[in-house]
């Protein structure tokens, strides 16, 4: 019995999923009786099965829906948006109930009375309009039609025409004879040319033929449990490895005469692998099929008109990928309808038709699948984005000014960002696009956005074909082998010096200078709790990217790159954060796949200040030359160095101990007729105080002017003035003259100075001299 129910649920669900689409088509094309019949048939068979399986409530819902449909079929009632809404609600209710049946075997206790009343009311409208007799329960008038076979005698066009009484059998036979004699026109065309029938009749017959062939197609497919396919996939993966071993063996023993056998094994295995991979592939159209419903409901709710166009719906993707992009794709589509497409009142003014167009396009492009979601809406205004981001404090005005329009677009992917002026039920909460980006990147994909104001916006998603087999770099560390997904890999670096010389210490974190930039270093040995390596003469660094963070992973040895079959971690080790999966290697041993995002996170490289990171990365990508051409190099004592743009420094001074006074426990000096606070630069930069060494007087001070007030920055020594080679950015660290140097960001420290100055000034007023 359970098996029957299970089958009923699966089959009904399929039908129900199709109904969503069919109902949308029906709304735009109410005269399409083929679709109407199909909808009716689906509901009818669910109703029948429910009666058999004794799901009374479900049967009642299906029955009322069917009643309403039969009125539509008889043209007693016209399709209106309200009726479509009611029918879609019916479909939703049936779906929820089917889900309950699938989970529990019972139909559940969902309250359907309201829906039943709605359906009744809709049906009653029809009765009032035409006073048609109310269809009696259980035997709708059209039931007889259903049992009628589409074509009695096979599905040949001639037979269909004859059966429908459109032609005489003898004419068909003559036409068939002509074909045999070499006439290459199709049979329908011959009949029309001979004036035995009309083109419209032939068209009708062709439609019937297609339908009947479609039905037959059901027999040529079977349902297979995905688990079984996964298992097959696994076995094929193993076969590939065994094949590799045999091929290697054959190459080493050419005299053994089994090279040809090994060669054919090689070919067959490759084909088998491809075949099994294909079984897991699904057309993206399966996913898209759900979107017209989403768009319809949303556009109705928003009072917009949206047409949806699809191109490349037969592009195939691995089932797991389809699952993974379902939510991101739906989100982008919802956003497009909500923000992208203008209201029907605004569109004609811009010279566009009232209905906006949402276009979905999928295609294969060099081992990747590209999905484009574009609209012909208003486009995204980069200036608005920037203004919004500045207002909400996500970027500074300075960063915004340097940002190109194209960079600014990517602000929509910053967490917590939203441009919607008002929060609607759909979007505007600023949650979503960042999740979209993260989810797509998680499966090794990328998302791009292009826009033109007044013309439209296009989101371009690129994703791999499959997740099951990925290219990976294998490395060795502390005796174990690890695989690193190639999507995360940027480059490999091997230093010529041992660790103590190659890596530098910065704030207690090891860093490596890669082409003048500082790359934070994560030691894999340390991460997996192994002792440090001894007697190494060089350091192997794998430069990786996780989200927007770049970092170097130190490993013992870099082995090679290969395609690996990804296997999930077993339950007993899945709680270890460093690994995302496991795989079997050519020698049959298991290797762990490193979770790069997690490694970065564990090492404290990302997540904590994500907003700052994004802004920094955006600022970095802009690459605008700074106005400050020369910088001042400062010694903070204890090998620590800092740099600041010379333009922000007004004077360099030296003060004697006797000149230093104290106001509110703040060291101050009288400077040009006012009180100037002294600040220990090393302490404000978090580099540890160098304890204003009063013994070594006089103090070196760089006078920094901030909003009209002056502050004295105390340093150990003022070293030099150097040219800015373009690599120096405030708030970061860089290498100047062979030393790691902190670059002072006047903006970031401005508020500290402000608060100090206020304190001093209030002290000054109180002193009343």
């Amino acid at each position, binding site marked *: 019995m359970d098996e029957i129910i299970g089958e009923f649920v699966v089959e009904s669900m399929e039908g129900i999923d199709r109904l969503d689409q069919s109902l949308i088509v029906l709304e735009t094309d109410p005269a399409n009786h083929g679709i109407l019949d199909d909808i009716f048939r689906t509901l009818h068979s669910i109703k029948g099965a429910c009666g058999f399986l004794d799901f009374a409530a479900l049967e009642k819902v299906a029955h009322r829906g069917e009643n309403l449909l039969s009125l539509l079929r008889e043209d007693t009632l016209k399709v209106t948006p309200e009726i479509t809404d009611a029918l879609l609600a019916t479909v939703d209710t049936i779906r929820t109930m089917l889900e309950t049946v699938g989970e529990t075997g019972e139909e559940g206790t969902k309250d359907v009375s309201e829906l039943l009343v709605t359906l009744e009311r809709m049906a009653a409208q029809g009765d009032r309009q035409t006073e048609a007799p109310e269809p009696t329960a259980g035997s709708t008038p059209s039931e007889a039609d259903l049992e009628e076979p589409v074509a009695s005698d096979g599905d040949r066009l001639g037979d269909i025409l004859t059966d429908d009484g459109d032609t005489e059998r003898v004419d068909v036979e003559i036409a068939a004879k002509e074909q045999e004699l070499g006439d290459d026109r199709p049979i329908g065309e011959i009949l029309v040319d001979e004036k035995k029938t009309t083109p419209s009749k032939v068209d009708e017959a062709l439609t019937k033929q297609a339908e009947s062939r479609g039905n037959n197609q059901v027999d040529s497919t079977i349902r297979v449990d995905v688990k079984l396919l996964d298992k097959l996939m696994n076995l094929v993966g193993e076969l590939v490895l065994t094949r590799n071993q045999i091929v290697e063996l054959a190459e080493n023993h050419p005299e053994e005469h089994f090279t040809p056998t090994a060669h054919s094994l090689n070919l067959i295995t490759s084909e088998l692998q491809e075949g099994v991979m294909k079984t897991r592939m699904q057309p993206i159209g399966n996913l898209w099929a759900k979107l017209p419903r989403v768009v319809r409901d949303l556009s109705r709710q928003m009072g917009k008109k949206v047409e949806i166009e699809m191109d490349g719906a037969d592009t195939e993707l691995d089932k797991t990928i389809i699952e993974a992009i379902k939510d991101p794709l739906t989100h982008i589509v919802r956003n497009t309808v909500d923000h992208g497409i203008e209201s029907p009142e605004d569109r004609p003014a811009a010279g566009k038709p009232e209905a906006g167009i949402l276009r979905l396009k999928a295609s294969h492009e060099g081992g990747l699948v590209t999905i484009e979601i574009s609209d012909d809406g208003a486009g995204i205004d980069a200036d608005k984005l920037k203004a919004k981001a500045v207002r909400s404090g996500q970027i500074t005005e300075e960063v915004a000014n340097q940002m190109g329009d194209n960079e600014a677009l990517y602000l929509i992917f910053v967490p917590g960002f939203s441009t919607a002026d008002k929060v609607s039920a759909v979007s505007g909460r600023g949650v979503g696009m960042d999740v979209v980006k993260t989810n797509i990147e998680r499966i090794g994909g990328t998302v791009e956005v292009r826009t033109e104001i007044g013309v439209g916006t296009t989101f371009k998603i690129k994703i791999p074909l499959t997740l099951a087999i990925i290219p990976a770099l294998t490395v060795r560390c502390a005796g174990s082998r690890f695989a690193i997904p190639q999507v995360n890999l940027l480059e490999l670096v091997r230093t010529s010096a041992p660790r103590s010389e190659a890596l530098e210490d910065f704030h207690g974190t090891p860093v490596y200078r890669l082409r003048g930039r500082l790359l934070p270093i994560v030691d894999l040995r340390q991460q997996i709790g192994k002792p440090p390596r001894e007697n190494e003469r060089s350091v192997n660094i794998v430069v990786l990217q996780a989200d927007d963070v770049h970092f170097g992973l130190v490993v013992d040895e870099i082995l090679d790159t290969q395609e690996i*079959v990804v296997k999930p971690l077993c339950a007993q080790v899945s709680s*270890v954060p460093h690994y995302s999966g496991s795989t079997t290697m050519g020698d049959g041993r*298991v290797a762990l796949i490193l979770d790069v995002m997690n490694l970065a996170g564990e090492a404290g490289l990302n997540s904590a200040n994500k907003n700052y990171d994004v802004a920094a990365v955006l600022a970095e990508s802009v690459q605008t030359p700074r106005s400050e051409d020369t910088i001042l190099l400062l010694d903070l004592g204890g090998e620590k160095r800092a740099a600041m743009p010379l333009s922000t420094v007004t004077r360099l001074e030296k003060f004697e101990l006797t000149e230093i006074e104290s106001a509110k426990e703040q060291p101050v000096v009288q400077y040009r007729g006012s009180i100037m606070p002294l600040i220990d630069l090393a302490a404000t930069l978090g580099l540890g105080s160098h304890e204003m060494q009063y013994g070594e007087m006089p103090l070196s001070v760089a006078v920094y002017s901030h909003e009209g007030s002056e502050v004295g920055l105390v340093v150990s020594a003022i070293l030099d003035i150097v040219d800015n080679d373009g690599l120096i950015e405030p708030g970061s660290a860089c290498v100047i003259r062979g030393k790691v140097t902190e670059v002072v960001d006047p903006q970031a420290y401005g508020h500290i100075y402000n608060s100090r100055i206020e304190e001093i000034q209030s002290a000054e007023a109180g002193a009343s001299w």
Partner: protein
Amino acid sequence: MTLPSHRKLCTFRVGDLYLGVDVLDVQEVLYHQEITEVPGSHETVSGLINLRGQVAAALDLRVRFKLPERTEGSQPVHVVVRSNDEAVSLLVDEIIDVTDVATEDFEEAPDTVPLSTRELIKGAYKLDDHLLFTLDIDRTVQLDPYFTTEDHS
């Protein structure tokens, strides 16, 4: 549910414990498997093994039962069992036999048995020369130290 009067148990030894699992729960018994260490994992996890392409965790029952470590050089035996549709290898000292046991000889573990042992076994069969404990596979392979006590009747 009435238990059949006789069951067949696959029996093995871990330290001084004689343990058994229903033969139907045993997928296979393997010797000399290459084990891949998983740094950072639970101490019971010896590593991962490759079961014809399927990756399975190997759990050391000596560690699980808090027994002294296996002596250097002695090769453990893999008893591969299925739990929650996933294969798991249990590392034991040696395989003994497939033993027929009578259900009337079964008794639940007395309270005096140390908790670390008691929570992993269902009970014991009183055999002529020793006690044979039946292993609770699902609990044994579940490594969360805070697992909830389930109804055990």
